[in-house]
């Protein structure tokens, strides 16, 4: 368990090459997390110059306020919804565009475009599309022959679903390409052999292609789940967490607390989000990795 200096010297790999990376990571990633742990239990605000230790008071007040639990549930709904819709959509498109032809390359290139857009910009775009007199309502009115004005962005039950859809729209290009790359790694002989044995296309997909996509699933499910737990630009730009705070995910709650100067509270919520992400990320990596080996 000690640094084997002779080994490193012999191979001439200088440890000081690591130093800039270690210093910057410690200073700007690890130190804030440690400080966050400390400030969670203080009354740090913009209104007061000193910072006092107040134990669990933040935690108690926050749980009494109730918004943190609501926000937590919204975050879970959001992350799970995004993870399912985005990966399912990406997988279906990847299966359709698996072969590299001129048309499929053109379609991949087109479908990837939302990834280039800023999340905030995609939120504003769909705020327009989903608005009461917007293109989508007009279209629905046109096909039904009536005058439709569905409150896509004003429904306490449904708005979160449309926000999830937009998040999935913005990011599905990356998992789509990852799945295509994964599908192209599957040996052609395997598919041919299955065909010769009389497997139908659906069986080839469920019995051969999907199981062999293991590593691609691991990577893309984890990154999309955690990405969705953390980002809040789309609910912010589409509906500002509304209506009635039904799309206010935890990180937007932190953003609002920060804006109102309640920094101690903000760090408490931040700690909660941190613990939840750790609790999800690490077991998930282990479970998904294990499945990969078994397959």
């Amino acid at each position, binding site marked *: 368990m000690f640094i084997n200096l002779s080994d490193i010297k012999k191979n001439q790999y200088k440890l000081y090459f690591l130093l800039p990376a270690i210093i910057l990571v410690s200073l700007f*990633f690890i130190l804030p997390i440690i400080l966050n742990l400390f400030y969670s239990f203080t009354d740090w605000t913009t209104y007061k110059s000193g910072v006092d230790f107040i134990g669990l008071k933040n935690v108690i007040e926050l749980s009494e306020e109730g918004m943190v639990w609501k926000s937590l549930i919204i975050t879970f709904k959001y992350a799970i919804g995004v993870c399912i819709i985005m990966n399912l959509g990406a997988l279906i498109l990847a299966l359709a565009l698996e072969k590299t032809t001129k048309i499929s390359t053109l379609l991949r290139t087109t479908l990837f475009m939302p990834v280039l857009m800023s999340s905030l910009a995609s939120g504003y775009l769909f705020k327009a599309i989903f608005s009461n007199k917007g293109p989508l309502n007009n279209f629905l009115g046109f096909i039904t022959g009536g005058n439709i004005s569905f409150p896509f962005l004003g429904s306490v039950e449904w708005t979160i679903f449309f926000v999830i859809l937009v998040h999935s729209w913005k990011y599905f290009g990356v998992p789509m390409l990852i799945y295509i790359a994964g599908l192209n790694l599957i040996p052609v002989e395997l598919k041919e052999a299955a065909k010769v044995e009389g497997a139908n296309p659906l069986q080839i997909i469920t019995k051969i292609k999907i199981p062999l996509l293991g590593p691609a699933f691991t990577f893309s499910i984890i990154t999309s789940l955690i990405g969705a737990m953390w980002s809040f630009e789309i609910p912010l730009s589409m509906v500002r967490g509304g209506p009635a705070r039904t799309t206010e995910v935890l990180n937007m709650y932190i953003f609002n607390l920060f804006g109102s100067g309640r920094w101690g509270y903000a760090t408490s919520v931040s700690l909660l989000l941190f613990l939840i992400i750790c609790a999800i990320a690490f077991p998930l990596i282990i479970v998904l990795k294990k499945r990969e080996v078994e397959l």
Partner: protein
Amino acid sequence: MKKDLKKNVSARYFAVGLLAFIIILLPFWLILINSFKSLRESSILGFNLPSKWYLIENYSTVIKKGDFFRGFFNTLFLTITTIPSIVILGSLASWIFARSKSKIISIIYYVTISSILIPPAVVTSVKVLKILHIYGSYLGIILFYIGTLLSFSIFFTTGFIKSIPKELEEAARIDGCTNIQVFFIIILPLLKPIIVTVAIFLTLSIWNDFIWPFYLLKGDASNTLVLGLYRFVSSGERSINWHLVFADLILVNAPLFIAYFFAQRMIISGIMGGAVKQ
């Protein structure tokens, strides 16, 4: 049977093409065409051509009001200073991580790459930059970006370096190369494919970033493209002037879309290649 298969494939492409038209091209057309309309006409949010074109008026309003050029150069500056730093420092560290057999180094490796999954702490990052007296400045956010995004570069590059035979380095050493020469002459050029992948992802996330410029920049420095867009929309009255918002959307996103137009092949294969390596 072959004919059937062909029909099947073209039906599939037709379906995906239709989908791409509806969910990608129509929304983009909506932005583009409404950015050329008058306030009154754009408020209907139609797909038709404008009855009168307000191209120069709308775009010059946004460029002046939103101080577009400053935003553009600020964003460009952030992107082109941060990415090479991350790539070089990350590759240097990855080289050691990939070659070292020490347990401690491997623990440091796992702690370092954990920041791929674990997001930074928001409020106390502001605090740390304040303590270091670099809060609100470019130096602050650049160092912060390097510290939090290095993990991404290290994760992708370390695996890649492991596949490079050590003999290459040894041969260079015998020829009298120093360590730093071995790195820059032998290793770094071989890393080109993975560096392209990493740089693409970093460009997308830094260029389009909202959260960190919002928290960490102050005053004039904080005029990045995305923050400019945010302030422009937030400062509006209750109703949104879609013609101007859409013109701003076009301007903010145009640079990356233009780059994509010229380098789409490299970008798509870069991402697919990076995915396969892992």
